[in-house]
């Protein structure tokens, strides 16, 4: 049975529809991310779960209990904010203890839990510090510990890593996942960073303009996007423009491209756009049955582990990613190269 149920949620602010027909079942212990561009309604949905926004329509159930009309301080949920929001007048230990004090827990239990939490976030010895004596990453760890100390039914995080720099972000990302798995806590994680969502989640909810576009595992979302929006938003998409040829081929600059997907509603001569992930395009050597195209190199970007090559065929520009290795000689701008990709890697998009 689902642990957290969002049933047909809808939220309207004046004339803006922020969230529309949002349905989701989250299992106990599951890590679900809300992923989408700015303004798509991620925060609004999270805030409805937390109780800070009242849904215009729909119900929210946690562990079978309808909490739609329960005030936020009675929902027993943990919340972590982008801006950390530690209480500046309290020490780290007092921040972590706050929720337990509100629940009137016995002093001994509070002391013990604070100790456990500090150990969990690997910040023993920081209990007496104030938030302004901590780095951003440390503050967010404390905020996480503070939210977890009350043993919430669901942990809600709203872009918790956005204010941190790249290195700390990666570190804390792994930390969040480790802690989530250790405690087996049901988690909703809001982000607009696809890499974060892919790395952390059991399932991802991709949102666009207030609606759910697709719900699936990171693998599904990346490899089997159901809408063009999902395909474009998650990962990079290389697109090639061509026309439908006879026998189900697509002609790109006079070169035939075979697809596994049937071109059912296209007649020969109609414009067709095909989409590829950059890493499915190979620059050196084709496997039997692969499509082959002659392309012009427009530029080369060295990204460390991968080399990103900007290419053009028949006026469409797109990118191909090659894994870097010492034996690989990257092409130069102006070169003409043969590229290849498997028929099943290419999809027709609108």
């Amino acid at each position, binding site marked *: 049975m689902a642990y957290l149920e969002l049933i047909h949620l809808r939220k309207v602010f004046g004339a803006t529809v922020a969230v529309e027909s949002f349905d989701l079942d989250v299992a106990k212990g599951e890590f679900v991310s809300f992923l989408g561009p700015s303004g798509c309604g991620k925060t609004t949905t999270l805030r409805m779960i937390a109780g800070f926004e009242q849904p215009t329509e729909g119900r929210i159930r946690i562990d079978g209990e309808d909490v739609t009309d329960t005030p*936020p*301080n*009675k929902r*027993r949920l943990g919340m972590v904010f982008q801006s950390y929001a530690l209480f*500046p007048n309290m020490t780290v230990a007092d921040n972590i203890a706050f929720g337990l004090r509100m*629940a009137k827990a016995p002093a001994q239990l509070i002391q013990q839990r604070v100790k456990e939490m500090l150990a969990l976030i690997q910040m023993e010895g920081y209990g007496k510090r104030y938030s*302004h*004596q901590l780095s951003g990453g440390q503050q967010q760890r404390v*905020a996480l510990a503070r939210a977890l100390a009350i043993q919430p039914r669901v942990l*809600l995080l709203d872009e918790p890593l956005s204010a941190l720099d790249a290195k700390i972000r990666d570190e804390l990302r792994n930390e969040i996942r480790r802690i989530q798995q250790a405690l087996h806590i049901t988690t909703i994680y809001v982000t607009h960073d696809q890499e974060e969502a892919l790395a952390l989640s059991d399932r991802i909810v991709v949102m666009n303009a207030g609606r759910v576009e697709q719900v699936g595992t990171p693998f599904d979302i990346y490899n089997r996007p159901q809408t063009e929006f999902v395909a474009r938003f998650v990962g990079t998409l290389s697109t090639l423009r061509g026309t439908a040829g006879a026998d189900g081929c697509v002609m790109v600059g006079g070169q035939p491209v075979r697809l596994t997907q049937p071109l059912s509603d296209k007649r020969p001569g109609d414009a067709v756009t095909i989409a590829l992930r950059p890493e499915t395009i190979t620059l050196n050597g084709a496997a039997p049955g692969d499509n082959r195209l002659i392309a012009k190199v427009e530029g080369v970007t060295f990204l460390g582990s991968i080399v990103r090559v900007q290419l053009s065929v028949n006026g469409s520009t797109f990118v191909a990613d090659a894994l870097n290795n010492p034996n690989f000689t990257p092409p130069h701008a102006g070169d003409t190269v043969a590229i290849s990709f498997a028929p099943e890697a290419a999809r027709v998009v609108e």
Partner: protein
Amino acid sequence: MTGGRSLAARLFAWAIFIVCAAYLIVPLATQFDYSLRARRGEIGFTAYTNVLSIPEPDKVLQVQASPLKITLNLPRFYSSLLFSCLMAVLTIIVSTAIVVPTAYWVHLRVPRLKPVIEFFTVLPFAIPGIVLTFGLLRTYSGPPFSLTNTELGTVALLVGGYTIAVLPYTYRSVDIGLRAIDIRTLTEAARSLGAGWPAIILQVILPNLRVAVLSAALLTFAIAIGEYTLANFLFPDERAFGSYMASVGNNKIFEPAALTIISFVLVWILVLLIQRVGRGTGQTQMTGMR
């Protein structure tokens, strides 16, 4: 060239500073000098001892020092100061209890009403004290309120009047304090951790407004201690420090000068005390500024 300019600028700044300082210090210095000449041909503290000393028991004025009907045998300097201090403290408590939750709620829930509230809080600047006094007296001295019939009611009226009179300072100071912290997120963090409204205001908002509330309290204290009009009309027995100072000013020659110097020193001690307390919470202030 820049050196020359900055020298000129510095000289100019010093000149302004000296003129302003002189404007403030010269009257004080002459008052001080005058206050020392109570005995002809002699420099001494006679005027001060006249004000401060505890006279012989048979000369003690019996003055009720508080609304609690405690009769203290103290010279009027002390009894009136005590009375006004008590009124000032009550005003600080009442105005903090009203202003902090109100300003907080406006910031959190109805920020578009901020200009309206601000307008109302500066009204006491525009309304002369005497108008406020008569307005309060006319409204509350007769039925259905009749507050002035009882000692406690009169005190309530005085404290209420002071609370309004200091509103421009208290609201502004708390408003600035609230702008310096992210109250919306802090409130949500506290709520998600199970806190109700009283706990949020007392344990999260108020402690982070410590510096703002202290500076408001200082101003309130200074104003309430010296206030004359309302105190004198509500307590015609000249119980308040303001009334006492006025009566000394009318009836004595050297003592008013001594009293001026004494109250000046008192206010300075107060300022230093409050700054000391404020600095004790340095980390709150620093994070508040972030």
